[in-house]
């Protein structure tokens, strides 16, 4: 990473104040993109940023970094808890590709840590409220021209992956036959789950990882948050492994002004399992086809078994044979 050039764009973003890069450290976490902590002095004051760039190989869907940065600016203006965006750069002389900087915020997003502590009802309520605030953003928005409805994307992506998966076919057929009435689309995070929000002292600091944001059904975000894949060993705490589902939904409903329909949640829970299957296979293919030598990516492919099991369980297939 070219520190001098990085300092130059940080300086420009700060109104040409003098800037110097003091330290750059890689950060853990983030299965799709790479992150570094960048410590700097700007106008003589210490500042810390998070630099976010594409992974060695790409997943093949989701927002590009420039689009994600534009979204962060819109969200910050709307008062959503996001890391304050600083700058976007597409200058190959600094890094190997485009990246953006946001302010570094204190706290942890480590899901194992967040699920390991006692039930945190206040956090679950706050997350519900934050999601309801996000869902108040509705298309069209001139600042967000790139977001589309991804519902048909999973089927297309699964076809592109090119494996014959009868259980996924069964789920896709069920989803096609049981689709609820489409509501007015809202801005969905697309990956709203434990591990993608930052917490300090038990309190929400910011929601992270917006690359899967799209216009869609609000219930999709709710079901994703409660999916069993994201409970990190706390299966009984259905809300992301941190609290009861009812607590999270109560926070959501209070601000959204509507009751969440359990039947719709079930539908979106099946969709969540299909979505995670597609993502897991795409992640695995970064190893299998993209050549990225990563045990984590390779093992993610084996999580397909969880997705397929969960699809059948949630669809309540009547012929279970253990």
């Amino acid at each position, binding site marked *: 990473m070219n520190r001098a050039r990085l300092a130059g764009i940080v300086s420009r973003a700060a109104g040409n104040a003098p800037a110097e890069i003091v330290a750059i450290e890689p950060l853990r976490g983030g299965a799709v993109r790479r992150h570094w902590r960048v410590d700097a002095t700007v106008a003589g004051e210490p500042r810390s940023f998070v630099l976010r760039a594409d992974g060695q190989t790409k997943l093949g869907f989701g927002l590009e970094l420039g689009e994600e940065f534009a979204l962060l600016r819109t969200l910050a203006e709307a008062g959503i808890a996001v890391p304050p965006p600083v700058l976007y750069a597409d200058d190959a002389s600094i890094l190997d590709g485009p990246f953006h900087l946001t302010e570094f915020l204190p706290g942890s997003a480590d899901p194992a840590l967040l699920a390991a502590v006692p039930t945190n009802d206040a956090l679950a309520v706050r997350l519900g409220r934050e999601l309801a605030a996000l869902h108040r953003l509705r298309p069209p928005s001139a600042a967000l021209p790139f977001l589309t409805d991804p519902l048909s994307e999973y089927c297309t992506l699964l076809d592109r992956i090119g494996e*014959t*998966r*009868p*259980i996924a*076919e*069964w789920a*896709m*057929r069920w989803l096609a*036959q049981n689709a609820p009435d489409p509501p007015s689309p809202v801005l969905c995070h697309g990956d709203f789950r434990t591990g993608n929000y930052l917490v300090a002292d038990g309190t929400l600091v910011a929601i992270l990882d917006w690359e899967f944001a799209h216009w869609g059904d609000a219930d999709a975000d709710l079901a994703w948050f409660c999916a*069993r894949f994201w409970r990190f060993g706390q*299966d*009984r705490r259905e809300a992301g492994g941190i609290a009861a589902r009812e607590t999270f939904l109560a926070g959501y409903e209070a601000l959204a002004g509507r009751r969440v329909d359990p039947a719709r949640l079930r539908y979106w829970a099946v969709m969540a399992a299909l979505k995670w299957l597609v993502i897991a296979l795409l992640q*695995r293919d970064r*190893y*299998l086809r993209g050549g990225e*030598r*990563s*045990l*984590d990516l*390779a*093992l993610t*492919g*084996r*999580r*397909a*078994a*969880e997705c*397929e*099991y*969960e699809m*059948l*369980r949630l669809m309540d*297939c*009547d*012929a*279970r*044979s*253990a």
Partner: protein
Amino acid sequence: MRDPPDIESLLALAEGAEDAMLAARCRAIAARERATGLAPYRAIAAELGDDLAGLAADIRRGRFDAPGPERQRLTRLLWRLALLKLRENNPAFEVTKI
């Protein structure tokens, strides 16, 4: 019918891996796969038939929508396959274990 990558590739990656938990998970999957063997997969594959792609296409087209023995037989096979794979890859995920 197991999901790729195969266990040999996973074990090769696990050798010398920085993340000890992931490496241990690979070894545990390998042990369970050895214990299971291939016979249960071969039995399911034989029952599903040679043309798995054709079966998938039939599901997509709705051939098994109507209740009846054909649908019941297929869902039973899909459950057997799902449980077989789950019990090798992450047995703790099975709901009976909650």
